[in-house]
């Protein structure tokens, strides 16, 4: 729990810069890979989709964990034991009891992480480099660098539509899995 929340104490900017240090051509990760003989020469880990995804994971994983802890803590141990005594294996208990009852947390977490990733600006800007553009950096580019406000507005509207669409789908699917929500 503490481990999950700890990254949230630092700002996304600082975190992105730390990843730059770690993932650069002369960063600790590349040096380790070369040292262990896994790669012949440093590979490109920074300013691409990979580094952006790493940054996002570190940024939003805590949100998902926190949403899940809330609901999973509330699942009574008796339910697992009941399922077990009725013949369910550990996998069966997870699939039929734990997973469906975790849906509310899964929904909250997914919506938080999805909207967070969609609207994040600093992380993709710093870790994504110039080639990997996301909608948020694209709006900035269109509006501030190119002065094309029409194009920027179109992208912004697309973002809103996508957000609504995805939230609706998540809700629909979760209701199917756990009809009592």
């Amino acid at each position: 729990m503490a481990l999950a929340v700890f990254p949230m104490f630092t700002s996304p900017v600082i975190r992105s810069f730390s990843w730059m240090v770690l993932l650069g051509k002369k960063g600790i990760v590349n040096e380790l890979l070369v040292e262990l003989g896994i790669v012949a020469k440093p590979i490109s880990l920074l300013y691409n989709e990979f580094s952006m995804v790493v940054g996002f994971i570190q940024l939003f994983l805590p949100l998902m964990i926190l949403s899940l802890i809330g609901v999973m803590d509330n699942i009574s141990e008796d339910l697992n034991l009941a399922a077990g005594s009725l013949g369910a294996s550990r996998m069966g208990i997870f699939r039929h009891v734990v997973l469906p009852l975790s849906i509310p947390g899964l929904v909250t977490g997914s919506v938080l992480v999805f909207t967070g990733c969609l609207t994040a600006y600093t992380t993709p800007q710093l870790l994504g480099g110039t080639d990997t553009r996301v909608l948020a950096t694209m709006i900035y580019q269109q509006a501030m660098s190119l002065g094309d406000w029409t194009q920027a507005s179109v992208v912004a509207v697309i973002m809103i539509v996508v957000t609504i669409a995805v939230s609706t789908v998540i809700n629909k699917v979760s209701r199917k899995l756990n009809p009592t929500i």
Partner: protein
Amino acid sequence: MALLELQGITAGYDKNVILKDLDFQVEKGELVSLLGSSGCGKTTTLRLIAGFSTPMSGKFMFGEKDYTQVPLNKRNFGFVFQSYALFPHMTVFDNVAFGLKMRKLPAEQIKKEVMEMLETVDLGGFENRFPKEMSGGQRQRVALARALVIKPDLLLLDEPLSNLDAKLRVKMRVEIRRLQQKFGFTAIYVTHDQEECFAISDKVAIMNHGVIEQMDSPSVIYNHPKTEFIARFVGFENFMDLKPGNSDGIYVLSDGSSIQAEGGRSESSIRACIRPEDILIVPEGTEAVNPLAGEVMVSTFLGKRNQYNVRTAIGEFEVSTDQESVYRIGDSVTLSLTPGKIILL
């Protein structure tokens, strides 16, 4: 050989030992209750049998097989929880069908068996409800149906009625007994309610501090408790120390007077007890068997009965009587201890 046998089971959490070298046997088709106050180890015993935990040492034999290490989902025991533990995201039908689905039975057979079981527990027509839409008694019956539909080799009930109101509790315990006799299943029932347990069981095992003090039929326990703990548990309020007298059936009280009691015993010190309702209270000086002179200390009106606390030379006695005459605090009285009702421990 007994269907179920615990042999020298020791169990607990970390360093905290709850069960010490416990031996326990249940015959096929019996309903055995584990009775005791909270913390006596009765629930621990039940959870151990269910497979929710494993003992530190000892063996659990079931049907002549060693079940000590058999995992929970391979035991085929039904368990009814105090909290019912119904799956809140499933309908009544799916709750009851869960065990059969895990056994991968064909859908038609599952449907037929679940519907039959719901009829048996008087819940026909409720199959599409969710647990939160039902009353406590109905949930309890769903829990029972869910545990019974898998045709368990053993049914375990952990204080199943303690969340129900008094009337429903009586109704449900009759229901459980009816089902048990209808299907002839073997059951272990944990409770702290003495009346409930005596009403429902073939045998009662009274537990105290992790050991079984006495296991007998309810009437034997009620009339012939073996230890002071059990005597107190089943309503014996008055205790006295006796020494054997000069002939059989005659004992000497600590103040030197002698009384009659049934049973020949020769130990140098015998603990004896008698229920409040087995003592007669008469005015001082009246002719009586086993007389004890005393003074009324407390007089309590209980509706049908009057209860008196009477101080005598060998200690305070609690007397409960339905006689018309009423004694006041400070009245001198004579207590008559019915000889056949004095129990030697």
